[in-house]
């Protein structure tokens, strides 16, 4: 108690430090400011998203026009194809979804939303980004070593990943694994920082249930990541030794067990889905409340269901392995748990819809993306129920149905979730508004082609199209014109979607410098980040805020304004 009081005393006498303007390097590159580190993560993530998108373009062109020259790449060899799909998957999950949703949003928002001046360990935060940057460099350099980038699929199942006579990428494989391991270390450091900051550094008066859902979600996601990644780090060390030194942890000839890797990978890999899902859900919750001017429906229920989802996500991992020869009795167990986990997620979606119900909905760009998230993720979730049943999964496993299913979950999470947050928090990040019209053009130009890409892939998957085929012309059953036309349609939809990202990029860059000045609180929102100047200076708040109420007090009867910021005494 005495310590808390003395802290409060130092804070009340605290005045904003007037630093001399730092030079370029310490302001943009070696900054310890959480906002700058968040930006670094975000821009790195965007660059990686462009690389990942380009890869998708190349292999989609190969699938639509097998063996033909792909503009901007050349002819796709089988080896290059393997490497492209492997790295597309790995990049989009580890180097786009993770850094943007957890690291960028977490870094930028947590201190602002809980009302403190920085992360509790700014230098560890900086170290986290630097390790992440090294992992990016290692990954990109792996594309240029002899043999090319790793080509053993992003799940890296041994023996394909462990032995270079199978994956044919003797240097790419260990470099890829090293990059992934470094990335994990970066996010462990970041996650410890997020959790400790939220636990300890909240503004005076902010109790457990006054924390915005966004912060909760990032913290729970960090917890899930921390608890699930450990065995995989151990497993990655073992795989790296198998690859480079010749140990036989996963080699059945010498008593190893390849299925062990699948367990290690998915014990991490399935919670990982929720690690990236939860921050997106958090951002959507914030946006939905603000743009329907209503209190979040069932804040505590959402919180408890999130915890339930988090815990359940540890009980479902083997549903990725139904045809890997696992014990059938376990398959029953995992079918049941998989179907159970849809309950809390559905409950969360219902709470969000209930929040919308009867609100005065304003369809600004962030709100459009938030609504699209709910609709598209619902499709992803419902198709997942089919795959979760071990019987059906025997047919669907490794088809395009699976691929379309997880793109219907990951695209809403990583891309729509990112656009929701960037359109919503852009005024806070850069102090200016983004253009609404271009935002809406970008929205429709993203959502419509997205469905046009992946709905046909469901059909292809049900027709039995396997996931990892380089050239369908070699399979007469799959090379029929009606199936092939769907492939071409999906490919051109992907191109259209990529082209529609250009208006976003232009809107983004132009708005940073030329956008309308935003002011402190352009959306009339309650949470603490909107009480800081836009963009917030070093140290964030002129005077550190004190919290008086929960974060979603919108349209409270009897009040003149329809919002009630957390830090206003009454």
């Amino acid at each position, binding site marked *: *108690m005495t*310590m*808390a009081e003395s*802290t409060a005393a*130092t*804070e009340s006498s*605290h005045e904003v*430090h007037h630093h001399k303007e730092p030079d370029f390097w*310490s302001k943009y590159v070696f900054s*310890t400011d959480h906002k700058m580190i968040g930006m670094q993560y975000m821009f790195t993530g965007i660059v990686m998203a462009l690389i990942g998108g380009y890869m998708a373009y190349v292999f989609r062109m190969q699938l639509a026009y097998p063996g033909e020259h792909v503009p901007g790449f050349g002819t796709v060899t089988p080896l290059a194809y393997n490497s492209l799909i492997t790295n597309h998957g790995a990049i989009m999950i580890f180097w786009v979804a993770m850094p943007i949703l957890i690291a960028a949003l977490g870094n930028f928002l947590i*201190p602002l939303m809980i009302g*403190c*001046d*920085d*992360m*509790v*360990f*700014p*230098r560890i935060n900086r170290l986290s980004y630097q390790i992440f940057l090294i992992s990016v460099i290692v990954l990109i350099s792996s594309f240029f070593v002899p043999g090319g980038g790793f080509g053993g699929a992003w799940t890296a199942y041994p023996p394909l990943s462990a032995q270079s006579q199978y994956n044919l990428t003797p240097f790419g494989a260990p470099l890829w694994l090293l990059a992934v391991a470094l990335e994990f270390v970066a996010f*462990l450091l970041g996650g*410890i*920082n997020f*959790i*400790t*900051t939220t*636990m*300890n*550094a*909240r503004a005076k008066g*902010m109790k457990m249930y006054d924390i915005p859902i966004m912060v909760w979600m990032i913290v729970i996601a960090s917890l899930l990541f*921390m*608890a*699930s*990644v*450990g*065995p*995989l*780090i*151990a*497993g990655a*060390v*073992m795989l790296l*030794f198998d690859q480079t*030194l*010749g*140990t*036989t*942890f996963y080699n059945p000839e*010498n*008593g*190893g*067990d390849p299925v*062990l890797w699948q367990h*290690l990978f998915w014990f991490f890999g399935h919670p990982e889905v929720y690690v990236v899902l939860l921050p997106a859900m958090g951002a959507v919750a914030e946006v939905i409340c603000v743009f329907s001017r209503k209190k979040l429906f069932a804040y505590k229920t959402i919180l408890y269901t999130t915890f339930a989802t988090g815990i359940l996500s540890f009980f479902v991992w083997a549903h990725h392995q139904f045809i890997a020869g696992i014990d059938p009795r376990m398959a029953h167990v995992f079918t049941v748990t998989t179907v159970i986990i849809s309950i809390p997620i559905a409950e969360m979606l219902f709470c969000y819809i209930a929040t919308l119900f009867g609100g005065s909905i304003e369809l600004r760009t962030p709100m459009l993306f938030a609504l699209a998230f709910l609709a598209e993720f619902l499709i992803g979730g419902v198709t997942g129920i089919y795959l979760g049943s071990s019987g059906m999964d025997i047919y669907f496993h490794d088809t395009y149905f699976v691929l379309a299913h997880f793109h219907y979950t990951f695209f809403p999470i990583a891309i729509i979730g990112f656009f929701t947050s960037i359109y919503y928090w852009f005024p806070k990040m850069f102090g200016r508004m983004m253009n609404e019209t271009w935002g809406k053009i970008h929205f429709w130009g993203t959502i419509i082609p997205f469905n046009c890409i992946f709905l046909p892939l469901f059909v292809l998957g049900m027709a039995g199209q396997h996931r990892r085929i380089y050239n369908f012309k070699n399979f007469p059953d799959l090379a029929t014109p009606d199936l092939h036309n769907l492939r071409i349609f999906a490919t051109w939809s992907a191109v259209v979607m990529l082209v529609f990202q250009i208006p976003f990029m232009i809107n983004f860059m132009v708005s940073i410098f030329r956008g309308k000045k935003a002011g402190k609180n352009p959306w009339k929102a309650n949470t603490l980040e909107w009480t800081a100047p836009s963009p917030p200076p070093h*140290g964030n708040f002129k005077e*550190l805020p004190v919290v008086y109420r929960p974060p979603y007090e919108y349209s409270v009867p009897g009040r003149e304004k329809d919002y009630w910021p957390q830090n206003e005494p009454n």
Partner: protein
Amino acid sequence: MAFTAPLATARSATDIPTGRLATWWVVVSEIVIFGGLVVCYIMFRLHHTDWAEHASHTSTTAGAFNTFVLLTSSLFIVLAHQAASARDLKKAFRYIWFTIGGGCIFLVVKSIEWTNEISHGYTLFTNNFWSFYYVTTGLHGLHVIAGMVIMAIISIGVKKGEHLPRVEYIGIYWHFVDIVWLFLFPLFYIAK
């Protein structure tokens, strides 16, 4: 480089100092890393009943001595923490270096042990038991080295009377490394 800690670091909504809380989270994340490796080992060990024969080639004497060394070094670092909270800087400094000395003895014994085993033909590649043995004890050894380096850095601060709580935090980490060894010892040395 001028760096002033933000006010956030000094806040403590949970009543646990931020540094200690973060140390606990580090321990949690380490538990799952070591735990993952050990769980894999246990599963293999239960499957391969003949590994007992391989385990009989590890030196119980060396393992037991090292356990004793680590337990004693744990005692030293907790005494350092006691001295630091009594602001007896000299004593704290001395005990920290005793702990580092313990770590050194541990590593020396370890390297003699490894040399002996390798010269008898039990290398990383002999079979999966030895792969697990070297990877697990090697990872543990790296943690010992990391702890020693951090302690050496902290001892400089202790001498000046700065950052005294860090003695407690590194202590928690060191005890954790000790506890990991307490389990590796029966797993690799006793169970034959």
